[in-house]
């Protein structure tokens, strides 16, 4: 039993295998509906159409006209060898073959022949689950499916809007699944050892060893590498990657954004000069290349199918990964059955923290920064009386923070919860202290929609002014050597949750020349998030001290 776009081809196939009759279900159906019926017949031996669908279906049998093979008998196996561990639409298969310079026409028939041989599988881009509810088979989501008349197939056809950025996924577009072909061929150990131009710190060495063990033992499916901000978690992940590469395993290093992938490509290529490192992202020149180590955005992982023995996910909590179940689905599907996932983050989700507390998720801690100084612990400033921000004079506690930073020769990053408060606070500070600190103006604001965002951040990096007011936009990714942190309205828990506060606090004290930064949380009350963030940082310092990582 199967699906076909060309019954003649099926008949040719089955006739060669001695079959005498083939039954066809009429009329021809859109792929999504045909796949639903096929699944129902396969699982239950009978089917009822999804709600609202009425079709006069009948089985017609007898001899079919066998179609001559429109391709050379070697072509299917050539195509199969080119693509492995992928889930692709027809146009993507075409592109993948073009990249590897294989000839592949008429491709749909060649792929169908492979399907008949049981080497690949296919299904509609969007189909129906066993309850008759539409679901996208590319991204696994069912929340943004739109039903509408389709000009391509002429039926009412479901299409998915969750994964549109990778091209349309519709009920009438076949999605081909190419199971992975590669076996395990161990590589030379020397080739797989990462070449670093610096020595690992004791904390990194320990974590590196644990990560290596996670892969070599292969007992756990998932592991969290929980590192302090700026502790060098990527280098620690090299331990796991090196071990996997040594065993001949396929490795995917996934990042949330393409800028990170581009940056990591250079770092990984210099760490493993003897191996082929391939980076895939929106706009990358090639999207279907094979390599020993694949770097990709989480979106690109949607095109892989059970290919990798090890998936390393960098900044697992960062946007868009944090908010998108589709990307987590993609990463889990890209992993082979029995494969492993290593999550790298400084701020794991609540769910992950819970799993760590219950010992149901293996965790590797990296609690100290390479300079060996403790992480700056946030101090809470809760005004007892007055202390209102944005009106009247600047509260003395805030002024004291600014003066302390000035005395230490540091700059200050001031975090506020909303875009509107950036300009509001900027005006207020300048009105109260027109030229109190160095730089003219001494304070400037910056947020995601700011027209001169890059210019303002650049000027702050060059120490052309004293204080930068910003939103959570700069909670990660920006490193200023000598900076103190002041979070205003820290009680706004919807914005300043535990992870955000830990990331913000992690901006201070990163540089080896200025390892002792200061962090202040200014709010009208101590929220659970503030307390938890402070607790997490203290716990990391305690762990680092206990293990002897601190100077």
């Amino acid at each position, binding site marked *: 039993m199967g699906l076909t776009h060309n019954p003649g081809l099926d008949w040719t196939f089955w006739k060669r295998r001695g079959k005498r009759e083939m039954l066809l279900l009429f009329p021809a159906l859109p792929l999504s509906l045909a796949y639903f019926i096929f699944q129902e017949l396969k699982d239950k031996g009978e089917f009822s159409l999804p709600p609202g669908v009425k079709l006069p279906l009948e089985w017609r049998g007898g001899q079919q006209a066998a179609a001559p093979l429109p391709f050379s008998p070697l072509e299917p196996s050539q195509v199969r060898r080119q693509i492995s561990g992928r889930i692709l639409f027809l146009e993507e298969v075409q592109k993948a073959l073009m990249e590897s310079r294989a000839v592949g026409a008429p491709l749909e028939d060649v792929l169908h022949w492979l399907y008949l041989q049981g080497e690949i599988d296919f299904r509609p881009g969007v189909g129906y689950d066993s309850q008759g509810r539409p679901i996208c088979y590319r991204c696994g989501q069912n929340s*943004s499916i*739109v039903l*509408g*008349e*389709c*000009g*391509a*197939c002429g039926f009412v*056809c479901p*299409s998915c*809007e969750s994964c*549109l*950025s990778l091209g*349309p996924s*519709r009920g*009438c577009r076949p999605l081909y699944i190419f199971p992975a072909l590669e076996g395990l061929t161990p590589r030379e150990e020397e080739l797989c050892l990462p070449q670093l131009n610096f020595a690992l710190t004791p904390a990194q060495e320990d974590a590196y060893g644990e990560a290596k063990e996670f892969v070599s033992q292969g007992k756990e499916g998932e592991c969290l590498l929980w590192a302090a901000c700026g502790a060098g978690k990527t280098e620690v992940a090299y331990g796991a990657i090196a071990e996997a590469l040594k065993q001949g395993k396929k490795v995917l290093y996934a990042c949330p954004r393409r800028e990170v992938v581009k940056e990591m490509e250079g770092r990984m290529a210099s760490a493993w000069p003897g191996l082929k490192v391939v980076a895939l992202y929106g706009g990358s020149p090639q999207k279907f290349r094979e390599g020993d180590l694949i770097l990709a955005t989480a979106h690109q992982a949607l095109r892989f199918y059970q290919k990798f023995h090890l998936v390393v996910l960098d900044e697992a909590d960062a946007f868009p990964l944090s908010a998108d179940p589709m990307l987590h689905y993609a990463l889990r599907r890209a992993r082979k059955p029995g494969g492993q996932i290593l999550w790298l983050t400084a701020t794991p989700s609540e769910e992950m923290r819970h799993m760590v507390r219950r010992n149901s998720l293996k965790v590797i801690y990296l609690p100290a920064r390479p300079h060996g100084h403790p992480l700056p612990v946030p101090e809470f400033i809760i005004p007892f009386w007055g202390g209102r921000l944005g009106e009247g004079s600047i509260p003395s506690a805030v002024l004291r923070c600014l003066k302390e930073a000035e005395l230490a020769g540091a700059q200050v990053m001031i975090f506020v919860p909303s875009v509107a408060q950036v300009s509001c606070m900027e005006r207020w500070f300048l009105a109260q202290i027109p030229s109190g600190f160095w730089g003219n103006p001494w304070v400037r604001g910056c947020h995601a929609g700011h027209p001169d965002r890059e210019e303002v951040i650049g000027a702050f990096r060059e120490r052309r002014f004293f204080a930068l007011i910003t939103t959570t936009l700069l909670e990660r990714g920006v490193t200023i050597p000598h900076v103190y942190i002041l979070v205003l309205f820290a009680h706004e828990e919807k914005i300043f949750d535990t992870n955000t506060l830990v990331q913000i606090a992690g901006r201070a004290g990163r540089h080896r020349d200025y390892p002792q930064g200061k962090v202040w949380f200014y709010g009208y009350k101590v929220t659970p998030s503030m307390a938890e963030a402070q607790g997490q940082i203290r716990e990391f310092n305690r762990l680092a001290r206990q293990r002897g990582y601190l100077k």
Partner: protein
Amino acid sequence: MKGIFSWLFPSPPSCPFCGRSRGNFFCCDCCWEELSSWRRDLHPCSLCGRLLPLGEGKLCPFCEKAPPPFIARAAGPYRGLLKELIWEFKYRGRRSLAFPLSQLLGQVLFRDLKGYRPDLLVPVPLSSQRLKVRSFNQAELLASSLALSLGLPVEPLLLRVKDTPPLVDLSPRTRKQLVQGAFRVEGKRRLEGRKILLIDDVFTTGATVGACAEALLLSGAAEVIVLTLATGIINSPPSFL
């Protein structure tokens, strides 16, 4: 637990364009401000609807030279957020934008065309080849959504009898030559005395809607008003005039 909570306290409706929460209007204040801010500096040409700087005459240089056989209006200039939305809808295939974008057309109908009430909505057709690739006709989706809101009939009366290449980046003269005779009304249907609202996504030179309007008027339509999502801005008379 989460399910019960969200059932008891459903989250407020979100803006279809940016995802932020909105009030009772079909989009949020920020998006509406961005989509309607052009009215502070520009006004539409009385005939073709292309946008002119405020203070300039009622007609654009094109219409002064050769008035078109229709009146056209658009929801705004082809730039910024509107351009992004049209791109997302038309080329990326985000069909769910059809309804909110049709609401923009509805706003134009009430605001700029003083609540004009046509007899029939007609979408500009797509060539069968392009329909197969794109899988939907964006003008048809817009017309259907708008017709649903207005309680008016929509009929895909026009047929594209000549396939034309994409008109993007072509000169006005070439566009006009390419689309001449490209459309005709289905069958031998007469549209005696009927007021037609022709729907398209973007008005660039007016060549496509001009050819459609001619076909409709030849079939007896009393008048054709064109409504599009976006149109061009005329800053100064072009050199080829």
